[in-house]
């Protein structure tokens, strides 16, 4: 069980960090969301794992798990919501103000071209999900 949780935490961290290092705001937001999960799980795991031992008094309880990390993580979850909401709005505002959702600042704000070392590849057609709409959808 411990190993499983450790793998989950590690994977979420890796995925979160990878996305945070992408070049667009939305990826970064998703990345921070993933990082939030992993950090919360990590903090929670610092109280060690226990099954069927919630920290709620009961006549039938055999024992209780550590309540302190739970209390800390609970507020962390709520605060991370607040933080995510702020970041989402900042990203939205930045996109509306600058017409681009790129993360890195260009030397010349007018120059929206990519860096020389960032060779753009063609959009991969393998990717599923939303495609650009085809046809006339004028309302």
């Amino acid at each position, binding site marked *: *069980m411990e190993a499983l949780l*450790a*793998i*989950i*935490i*590690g994977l979420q*961290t*890796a*995925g*979160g*960090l990878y996305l945070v*290092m*992408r*070049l*667009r705001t*939305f990826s970064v937001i*998703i990345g921070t969301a*993933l990082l939030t999960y992993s950090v*919360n*799980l*990590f903090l929670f795991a610092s109280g*060690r*794992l226990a*099954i*069927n031992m919630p*920290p*709620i*008094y009961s006549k039938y309880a055999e024992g*209780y*798990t550590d*309540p*302190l990390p*739970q209390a800390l993580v*609970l*507020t962390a979850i*709520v*605060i991370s919501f607040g*933080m*995510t*909401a*702020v970041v989402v709005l*900042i990203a*939205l*505002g930045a*996109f*509306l103000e600058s*017409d681009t*959702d790129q*993360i890195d*600042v260009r030397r010349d704000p007018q120059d929206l071209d990519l860096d020389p*070392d*960032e060779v*753009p*590849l*063609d959009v*991969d057609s393998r*990717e*599923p*999900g*939303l495609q650009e709409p085809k046809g006339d959808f004028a309302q």
Partner: protein
Amino acid sequence: MTEQMNVTLALIAALPFVGALFPGLMIRAGRDACALSAGWATLSALILLLTLAPSVWDGETVVFQVEWMPLLGLNANFMLDGLGFLFGCMILGIGLLIILYARFYLSRDDPMGQFYTYLMLFQGAMLGIVLSDNILMMVVFWELTSLSSFLLIGYWKHTVAGRQGARMALTVTGLGGLALIGGMLLLGEAAGSYDLTEILQRREAIQDSPLYMPALLLILLGAFTKSAQFPFHFWLPHAMAAPTPVSAYLHSATMVKAGLFLMARLWPVLSGTDAWFYIVGTTGLVTMVIGAWIAIFKDDLKALLAYSTVSHLGLITMLLGFGTTAAATAAVLHIINHTIFKAALFMTAGIVDHEAHTRSIKRLGGLRHLMPITATLAIVTALSMAGIPLTNGFLSKELMLEEAAHTTWVSNPWIVPLFATIGAVLSATYAFRFIAHVFLGPVRHDYPSKPHDPPFGMYAAPALLAVLVMVVGVFPEATVGSFLQVVADSVTGQHLHLHELKLWHGFTPALGMSAAAIIGGLVLLSAYVPFEQFWKALPHPEAKAVFDAIVTTLHRGCGYFSNVLHDGRMTKYIAIFAVTTIAAGLYAFSSGPYLPGTRPMLTPTLVDYVGALLVISSTVAIINYHRSRLLVLVLIGINGLVVSIIFVRLSAPDLAMTQVTVEVVTLILMLLALHFLPKRTPRESSWNRIGRDMAISGAAGIAVAALAYALMTRDFSTISGYYLENAKPGGGGTNVVNVILVDFRGYDTFGEIIVLGIAALTIYALGEALMDGKASRTLANWVQHYPYSKDRHPLMMVVATRVMMPISLMVGVYIFLRGHNDPGGGFIAGLVVAIALLMQYMASGFSWASERIHIPYHSFIGWGVLVAGITGIGAWFAGQPFLTSAFGYVHIEPIEEFELATAMAFDLGVFLTVVGAVMLALYSLSRIARRTGETVNVAPMDFDPSAEDPLEEPR
């Protein structure tokens, strides 16, 4: 030395700051009122100080101590001995005269309230330096003088010279102040105490300490920059851009004397070593000669006086540097004398400037016929500056020459006397020039303004000082003898047997040097024209140009440095940060012994494997499909839901409930935002870059996984047992997590909800900012590329959410009420209620819903924080600390006995804040949507099923 506690001391230190309040507020009451209110505070402080004179004369040290942070050695301790008394008298006495003089000097256009406020602030800071017993507090006041002098020097904000001079003074003295902080900390370390009274007793310990040398250098750096010693002297002449009252105050009695005060104060513990003699003595000697040399050729009256001040400060520094008690006594005497004649000279220079509308010596001359009173005052005080017998300047200059005559410098007995005599010659020259070229000679007819003597108020102050110059000069022993004894004793820390001060010492080397100085001065002045030609032929390194070049270079260097490190590429910073952290962790791991964990592990069941598989596959899918943004939102939702299931499985029901509700709210917000963002992320990273990022994040993932695994498989003791034992007896609840949140760690939670509230208000403000400017235009011209559903508010959803609304609210209330004893509480209940409201907005549209909810969400946040705060404050009335909770059990028929706890009121605050924050965030996003001209539905549904043609738009 005996000590005497006296609260008067604190009062004296506080009075100038109290006095600083009034002039700024009273400017509408008129200029006299301003001057009076400042003068009143200064006079009161001076009188209080004089009441302490008997104790000081008895050799007592008056102290007043308030413990502030005793563990850090930072106490508000004040002390007053002879030296402090001398400086206190100078600061307050000259301050009083300056206040009087400035009232007449400043014109109607100058904001006088501001002036007196700055002046009193400065006065308070200076007084703080000289009365502080704690050296850290002294440093604080020291910095305060730098800041307030910046305001004073730059008082005429409209002049470029004023602004630049102020900035230069702040830079130089501020940097010195930084060095001084370091020096004082080292000194305190070496002495083992931060209290001066203690430090002054520990000379041997300090001088034997390896910290002595660095401490000495740093402290001297602070003192030299403040006292304008070569090569830091250049800021002082530029500070002359200030109004003359400021120059007279800062450069005669106060600011520049602070450095001298510091050297005199620490003289008993720092002086007497070779390092002290060579650094301080030589710097003083060089400064004295260079200052006097430049002063001769300055045509600006104030510049002449400024360089003369530099020269005299050098003289005093040199005397302190000699390290003998006799030299220190001479230094003290010259501090007194210089203050008196220099303040008067600055004021007379100001009068000339004020009346003749020029300060250029080249345009003046013959003023003795036009302004006889001013001329008399100026001549008397300038003669004192030159060191002519029967003035006070003569006394200390004689003593200085006497000391110089007996000083050997690197086994050479001639160097110091020679340069001291040269300095005396030069200073006699500029003093004579000041007299001859301004006041003597024929009357001219081309003054910019017809000069005449000013009103009495303006010359009263310099006249008083000129009288003092004469009285002290003629009857030295009777006037300043005993005072000098007291001050010299406190500077040297021993009882001295001083020779009587007298005019005639017989034929001594000093008399010869003095005579040579006067004759040399007269000779040089008579040959002034060729002498000036010679000066003009010499190269003149312009200190300001050098200073500006240094500042520009530093500025460029810093700019380059931060441009390289901080080039706006966040991805780079994150990569650097991650690699550094992993490397640090690896180093820490490899440098310690490793023991495998011993804690028994739990066996996973099939459910656990399924859950893990779900998280793993959704995370991998997120990375793989991260360009498809809508898909990613679905995947991250899966991830978050499984995380909440993990919480349930591992005995954390509260966390699970919070996670589920937060997940829902977050996803809704992200969906709303995605509406205005590109729906896909372009592929723009090269494969190299992807490989690099994969490697970094993979390493970080492995590191974190290993760390988490290591943590989970080891036992260690925590403080959690306390919470488990005391939740019921201490907090009155059986849900330990909730009791911790609202009771044991209520302060944390209080902070959290404030942060959450601030975050929501920030979101609101950001949304508000987008309603203006470019973003607003982008939104107004928004073209929607994707087709909207014709049925934006489906009937089924509308009906379902409305039916569910009361039920959801009920659930919210239930979760809130049971929170103290079962999973639930304010956070979760708040989120549940927020979701219930959100559902209404989503199903029926924003305007339909907001027409029916009239409460602004800002006030939810405000009330929430207020309720939580008031609950916490309530504990004060029971004599308990903030946020101590109380609880009791109530029994009302026919309900079962139930518990009431103040923690519940606190939880209510949490609840309100959470609801307000979530809804305010949503409100901000929906406002952006409406800005795009999105049609707003008025009816609850887009379709009216009862109409004959349901597809027709509702009216």
